[in-house]
């Protein structure tokens, strides 16, 4: 599990305050302890990586329920608008993005910090694979030496 440090802009990255990364294998092995952690700390969210790319999010039910209410409110408010008001609001949101070099997090999935953390998880996996391979090579070397000794 790799915790992500909180970023400078709280409004842009509100959903990334208590974010951790894990790969599928790790989540499969540690699902129950993870669920306990979510119960103890509902704001925690776990991005699950598959082949190093974000695929799913594990979150507490309280968080999901709150997000659901938020979405319901947004949708109801938007549905109450006339078509012209809806279009004007969409244009206002588009204009608000001017001059911003940082695209909204929702558009790109995760921000640069998150991508760096994802890269660290992949690097960690590669290091583990390398260590396993080295162990196997050492075992094979030992077997080879024994066979040569017997043959000699």
């Amino acid at each position: 599990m790799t915790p992500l440090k909180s970023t400078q802009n709280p409004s842009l990255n509100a959903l990334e305050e208590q974010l951790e990364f894990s790969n599928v294998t790790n989540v499969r092995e540690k699902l129950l302890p993870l669920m306990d952690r979510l119960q103890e700390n509902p704001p925690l969210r776990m991005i699950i990586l598959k082949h190093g790319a974000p695929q799913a999010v594990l979150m507490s039910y309280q968080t999901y329920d709150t997000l659901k209410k938020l979405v319901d409110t947004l949708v109801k408010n938007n549905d109450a608008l006339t078509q012209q008001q809806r279009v004007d609001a969409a244009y206002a949101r588009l204009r608000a993005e001017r001059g911003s070099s940082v695209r909204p997090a929702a558009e790109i999935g995760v921000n640069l910090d998150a991508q760096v953390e994802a890269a660290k998880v992949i690097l960690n996996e590669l290091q583990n694979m390398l260590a396993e391979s080295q162990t196997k090579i050492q075992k094979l070397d030992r077997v080879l030496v024994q066979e040569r000794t017997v043959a000699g």
Partner: protein
Amino acid sequence: MHVELSFDLVLDLHFLVTGRFPIALRDEIAKHKQEIYDGLTQDPDRPDMLSVAREIDAAGRRFYVLFSSDKHQVDPDSDARPLRVIDIIEMQKK
């Protein structure tokens, strides 16, 4: 030049959360983004915007889709051209 397609936040909610619009519509829009971008004209009500509307069929349903491109968000040094989906209305299919 490549067209960078994006959706208004509320539309993203309807695609990805409420399911009001089918994902097939998103795919259909993405498939035709270049020709849609090429069809943009000056928006008569908004001097800072180019816009165009299209009727698009997806998942056996018909939708009226309004597209826009903000002139202030075009970076002349970049190859990317922004195209935003502003509004979608489901129509009665004839």
